[in-house]
């Protein structure tokens, strides 16, 4: 593949032809902030935060949509670039709720991070602010369009990753907002609540309803695992706080699904903490279940199975193993039946 050579902040870098200036700058080790850019989505060049100076160019181009060319000389942190970025951030902050103290996204918010890094404070422009009602009438996602910076990642992810295009930009100018058809609530739209929009949102505009108020972002321990529902084998991160699973966030490194998930995987694992979970071994006595100790229950199972085996033979016992349990559990179940009981009567619901 042909390569091009360019200079970024004084560093030489070689990249394949077709690489953007943004990617070349990152490869050269430079910091370039982005809000609308996403490596898996199309590139609108919308937020302009990634502007850079290119020697000889008549303006400061958005590096995410500018192709690196041979001999380019790029500055990613010149005074003009920093001033431009600060102005963009000031404009955003003056039209953004100043509620980082209680915002669920705090600690994992790109707008917050960049405002901190560039020491940008609200109040530079003042002026009108958005004043939308918070939409929380569906069971899965809370939409606070006051916090939306119009990066458009959500609508691109909805269309390009999920193939649905439930949302798009509506209205014009200052009134521009991300909306469903006819600007209805998600609950009244064709949205299937996969939450991919939430996964890509850089601010607190889109949040997982069930996780609100449960833990700050920095308190959450993330444990990557494999989904317990269908057979696609999506990976995601269980969000754990104080010994409880409080929700799920996606993990871009997941081989089958990346950050994309469905409503069950993203919002359905709360069954783990259902109050209806069985908590103690139960033994049926006179037609009623009675709680027992593990020893009593295990001894009973072993002695009953032992007696039946002795009386009627190994093939009088069978096991249904489980397509929801792990490989290891299925292995021990079939081993127990074959080596312990002495029968091949072990099956599972692959056929039912």
């Amino acid at each position: 593949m042909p390569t091009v050579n360019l200079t970024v902040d004084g560093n030489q870098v070689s990249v394949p032809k077709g690489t953007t200036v943004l990617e070349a700058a990152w490869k050269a080790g430079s910091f370039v902030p982005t809000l609308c850019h996403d490596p898996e989505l199309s590139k609108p060049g919308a937020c302009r935060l990634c502007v850079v100076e290119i020697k000889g160019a008549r303006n400061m181009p958005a590096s995410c949509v500018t192709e690196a060319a041979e001999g380019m000389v790029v500055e990613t942190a010149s005074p003009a670039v920093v001033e431009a970025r600060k102005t963009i951030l000031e404009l955003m902050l003056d039209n953004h709720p100043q509620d980082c103290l209680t915002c669920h996204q705090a600690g994992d918010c790109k707008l917050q991070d960049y405002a901190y890094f560039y020491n940008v404070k609200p109040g530079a422009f003042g002026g009108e602010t958005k004043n939308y009602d918070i939409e929380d009438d569906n069971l899965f996602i809370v939409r606070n369009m006051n916090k939306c910076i119009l990066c458009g990642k959500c609508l691109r992810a909805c269309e390009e990753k999920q193939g649905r295009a439930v949302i798009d930009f509506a209205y014009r100018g200052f009134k521009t907002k991300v909306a469903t058809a006819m600007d209805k609530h998600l609950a009244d739209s064709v949205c299937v609540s996969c939450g991919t929009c939430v996964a890509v949102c850089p601010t607190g505009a889109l949040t997982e309803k069930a996780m609100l108020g449960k833990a700050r972002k920095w308190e959450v321990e993330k444990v990557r695992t494999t989904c317990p529902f269908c057979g696609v084998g999506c990976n995601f991160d269980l969000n754990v706080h104080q010994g409880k699973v409080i929700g799920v966030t996606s993990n871009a490194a997941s081989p089958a699904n990346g950050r994309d998930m469905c409503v069950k995987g993203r919002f359905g694992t709360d069954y783990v903490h259902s109050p209806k979970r069985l908590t103690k071994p139960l033994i049926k006595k006179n037609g009623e279940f009675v709680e027992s100790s593990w020893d009593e229950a295990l001894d009973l199972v072993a002695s009953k199975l032992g007696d039946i085996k002795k009386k009627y033979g190994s093939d009088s016992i069978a096991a249904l193993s489980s397509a929801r349990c792990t490989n290891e559990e299925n292995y021990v179940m079939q081993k127990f039946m074959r080596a312990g009981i002495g029968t091949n009567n072990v099956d599972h619901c692959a056929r039912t």
Partner: protein
Amino acid sequence: MTNSFADYLNTDLFFVIGSNPTEAHPMAGAKIMSSLLKGTKLIVADPRRIELAEKADIWLQHRPGTDIPLLNGLMHIIIKEGLQDQAFIDERTEGFEALKATVETYTPARVAEMTGVPENLLYDAARLYATTAKAMLCYTLGITEHVCGVDNVMSVANLAMLTGHLGKEGCGVNPQRGQNNVQGACDMGALPGDYPGYQKVANPEVQAKFEKAWGVKLSPKVGLMIPDMMDAAVEGKLKAMYILGEDPVMTDPDAHHIRKALNTMEFVVVQELFMSETAMLADVVLPGASFAEKDGTFSSSERRVQRVRKAIEPIADSKADWQIICEVAKRMGCNMDFAHPEQIFNEMAALTPSYGGINYERIEHTGLQWPCPTLDHPGTPVLHTKAFTRGKGLFKAIEHTPPAEMPDEEYPYLLSTGRILYHYNVTTQYSSALAAHRPEEMAMLHPADAATLGVKTGDKVKVTSRRGSVETKVDVTDKVLTGMIWMSFHYKDTKTNELTVDAFDPVSKTGEYKVAAVQIEKVM
């Protein structure tokens, strides 16, 4: 699956038959939906106007239970028009002449009559699938859950072999597995005729290998499959059952028969997360742990072995299921002293050639797709690239088998069943958000039938088959054919499998969940 999910983004045509991926396998569905935006073509064969049918270039709305005539009809056209991949057929397959002779009789006119699909669409679909270089066949339970499920699968394979759409990127025969670890449970030998890795219990060499590894005498007698177990229980031959994380009363066909089987046995132990319909019939219920509370692995549809990681301690006094089984085994004198699932995995991998090169360290980040026989093997994203498992791919000449029970005067409606987006077979009913979002069954009924019955969306009907009767609300929609009702099996209050037929494929013993005859009446 012969191919991988990554390959979904690398094909030029999907042919989806008997599968509703945007609901039952949503991330597979999302890959198909997003591919369409890039111009990837789509053929859907389904009696219902599922979401993908609405997006399809060609939708073949065949009647339930007519997959074989449909597929034979497509092959008839392909052969008549010389669109088959003769080089692939000559080099990689055998039995072509027999197939040709059989499909000869499935003329477009006859197939249109049998399936309800217009002739012109049969031609369009046959030509498009045969002439697209990278074409991927996807199916699921709409193919397998019939009395002719195995023949349906063979017919799908016939079509792929006929056109050379196998053993290549962006092609293949891709059954998406229904449950998170149904692939793994099969791989692990939770099957009556197979040790782990599909090593046959009836093979003396295999038996000797496992006897040596486990230090006990083993039985060469193939065990019972689930439907046979239930029959044996009712007949009094099977006395005890250990049920791990399954709810056959809810999910197996003909719930009445299953209940009778469980009630007849002397001893039933159920290991579960919740007090399921099955657990209620048990003598002992043991509280297992959910996927979030234990370490281990699942194997997905694409044969990818991936880690399950313990995030929290088992809830209350529950225990990881592997620990419980090992405890029972130990008490019965069977030495199963494992300290951690990784030890179990390593013992299994040492005995299972297709998993031989897999260990926890290697699957830490992205998993591995079996077969992966050695530690330096990279795994296998595409199967059958050079040869099939038996060497040459064998065409099976297959004739149509009608469903076991079709609508008649007494039971005039056809019941078909499946899964909806918002629920899984088990557990989602205990998710507060999912349960609140879709709290009850909404059976799909055609507007013409709704008018006859005098019902509208939200009204209740009583659905009765020769096995049983349930009540359900209806969703009046032209997404189903007239004369048909479609129900899910997710709800305790509408136990759909009270209705389904106790007829099974003779080889796989898979139940015919997709076709049963019922009557419907309005509940006042």
